[in-house]
């Protein structure tokens, strides 16, 4: 078991290195100095106290969505609706944080859980359709993503738009609902700690509980599950609910711990990053933590590449794409094979 983990980790590391190498070649050909540019990437991710905090903050939602994606992939479902669930989670967290009046602390907890509940509800529809009627979850995910994103636009730009704000965002939540910072010296939201715990709990759920055992059996071999009287339908439904809850929390941490409001299109694709993180982590929930760190570095470091090294935004996207694709290829291949097998 340990050896397999190490092998998986090594595979991912090598894949990432290959990605950087190919990226370097592209940069060289385009006339940049790859070493200098990668240096500025690291520098802008960890160069000083504040950028390091930024990196860790970006890591926070990716851990949640990464855990959510891992659950899906473990059960051989290819659901990619975390982005939508994240936005719905941000709305429900915001509504509770903005409209309800509760004592400090409790308010934050309730608002946070409300965020998870929002994501869960957004997973209920595709989950029920998949479990009961076999409706393809990938298709419903894409549709629901857009509904969620545009509905959030309606919230941020119209229904709860703060007219005094300089950027497009909603009103602020009540101070009682704000997730506090770890300490004045480390102005990182406690949401970060919760994200780490949630990721580890996902691992515990998968490997040490009856539900997790059933999820893995269904994902690996639905025929066996049927013979062993494990209900495939209810397992799918459970996965959708738990995964949706986690993805909803991703939105809630951003609203309650970072912006204290919903900023227009605040997610640069954290839902998608979760999918990538799950792939890089080779579907191992514990590996989600380093994988999401890696993605956060790419996210926050790209600003540094752009500003510091003068690389065009498009070029950065190309380099990011190359690195991400090569990092995700090994697991994506396995996953696809399993998905095809499960559908047969």
């Amino acid at each position: 078991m340990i050896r397999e983990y190490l092998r998986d980790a090594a595979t991912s590391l090598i894949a990432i290195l290959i990605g950087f190498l190919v990226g370097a070649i592209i940069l060289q050909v385009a006339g940049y100095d790859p070493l200098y540019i990668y240096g500025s990437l690291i520098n802008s991710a960890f160069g000083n106290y504040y950028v390091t905090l930024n990196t860790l903050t970006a890591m926070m939602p990716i851990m949640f969505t990464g855990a959510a994606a891992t659950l899906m992939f473990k059960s051989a479902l290819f659901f990619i609706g975390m982005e939508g669930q994240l936005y719905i989670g941000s709305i429900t967290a915001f509504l509770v944080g903005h409209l309800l009046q509760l004592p400090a602390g409790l308010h934050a907890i309730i608002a946070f859980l409300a965020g998870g509940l929002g994501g869960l509800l957004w997973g209920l529809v595709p989950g029920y359709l998949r479990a009961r009627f076999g409706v393809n979850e990938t298709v419903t995910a894409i549709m629901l993503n857009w509904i969620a994103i545009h509905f959030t636009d309606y919230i941020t730009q119209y229904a709860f738009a703060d007219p005094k704000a300089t950027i497009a965002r909603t009103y602020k939540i009540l101070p009682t609902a704000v997730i506090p910072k770890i300490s004045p010296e480390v102005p990182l939201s406690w949401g970060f700690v919760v994200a780490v715990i949630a990721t580890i709990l996902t691992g515990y759920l998968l490997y040490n509980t009856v539900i997790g055992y059933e999820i893995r059996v269904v994902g690996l071999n639905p025929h066996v599950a049927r013979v062993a009287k494990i209900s495939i339908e209810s397992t799918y439904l459970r996965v959708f609910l738990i995964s949706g809850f986690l993805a909803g929390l991703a939105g809630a941490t951003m609203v309650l711990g970072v912006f204290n409001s919903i900023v227009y299109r605040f997610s640069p694709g954290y839902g998608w990053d979760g999918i990538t993180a799950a792939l890089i982590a080779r579907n191992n929930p514990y590996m989600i933590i380093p994988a999401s760190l890696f993605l956060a570095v790419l996210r926050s470091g790209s600003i540094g590449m752009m500003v510091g090294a003068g690389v065009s935004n498009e070029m950065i996207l190309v380099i990011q794409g190359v690195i991400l694709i090569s990092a995700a290829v090994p697991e994506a291949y396995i996953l696809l094979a399993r998905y095809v097998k499960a559908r047969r």
Partner: protein
Amino acid sequence: MGEMVNIHKIYPDGTVALRGVNLDIYEGEMLGLLGENGAGKTTLMKILSGLLKPTRGVIRIKGKEVKFRSPKDALSYGIGMVHQHFTLVPQFTVLENIVLGSEPKVNKLMIDWSRAEEEVKELMKLTGFKVDLNAKVASLPVGMKQMAEILKVLYRNIRLLILDEPTSALTPIEVKSFFNVLRKLREGGVTIVFITHKIKEALEITDRIVVLRKGLVEGVISTTEATPQLLARMMVKVETKPIIKPEVSPSREVLVVEDLWVRGDDGRYVVKGASFCVREGEIYGILGVEGNGQKELVEAIIGLRRYDRGRVLVRSNSRLLAYVPPDRTTEGLVLEMPVCENSILGIHKMFTFGKLAINTRKVVVHANELVSKYSIATPNIRTPAKYLSGGNQQRLVIARELSKGSDLLIVVNPTRGLDIASTNYVRKLLVDLRSNGKAILLVTADVDEALEISDRLGVIYNGRITGEDLAMNFTEERLGLLMGGALRE
């Protein structure tokens, strides 16, 4: 027109399917290829149609030696095969399915549908087939699908048509009209090879019958000279003696199945009023060629399939049913999971703290117990099940099922694909369990196995138990007739 000489076939997993088969096919004849499961009929014809390569041996067509690398090569010699399972695209129309892969084209780009339709209509006129070309395949009854399947092969200018158990999904009325079509085809000069395990059909439709048994030709006979008894004796030869079993007088009925009717996946009845019982301290064998309703019968008994009529009664002290499925790799085990996790499959809810978290220590103890009790050879209990040999995988499945503590054990083809040592171990284990009072339902397609360890035996044909007796009372001829459907007691 065709000749196969000294054909051997060993599959990559070591299974020997053919052991030196010689076969002549004469121009314009309807040749019956008769045999029970594992005789090698389908393998032989898959070789002739280019789907499989022989390990050794020569194929000659019209005196010329040929080597087929794919079905396409065989098609170019006018040889085409209709497989037992449909290969049609359900969402496509009949016409689209028929021309699929060899569509007539305009300017090499566009499909010439009007020409395709003309050609297929011409073909239907020639053969007497009547299928609605514009109907979606999914909406057709099974008999029509069969016609479409054959048209699809004929459309490729076939001179030698191979049919693999073509009547297995048809109703008696459909069979009748299907046979008329085949006769018309033969009159049109098409040579036909008809693979079947049904004696009656072989006698009814063919000109000549070749009987295969265990990868060898057992006999060749002109149909006019054949009798059901003769064919039955050729099909079935018992090569083992029953294992000596201690005398147990079976008493309590543990499993009672009464007049059970079960539908198959396509909605037709495949179990048609099966009745039998399994008593404490006996092995009740259900023997039959595969596809006679065994799968659905077992699924109905273990509760995976609904039944429309009849009754299944299990009198066991445990609510869990011990069931060893026919395919350990797809239904018995999760190959990627370690031995310990496989050892609790289906009973995993009993290894918990407070119903939610799995008690790993308890699982480890349980797995170690099974491994030592049934001498399962595995590096350790954390080894994924896929690294175990077939025999040890099967031991693991049986061990786990026995740990459920049920009075009834249902095993389906328990020794398929196992080596001799593992086969003997499994059979002896089953006999020991029976002698200790377990009721065992053994469903198998292996005549030797059924006779070797069963106390009582029922032969299943076309969804019914057509003959039941003490295992030692069956002669080869009687078994052959029952399995071939030429006898109903």
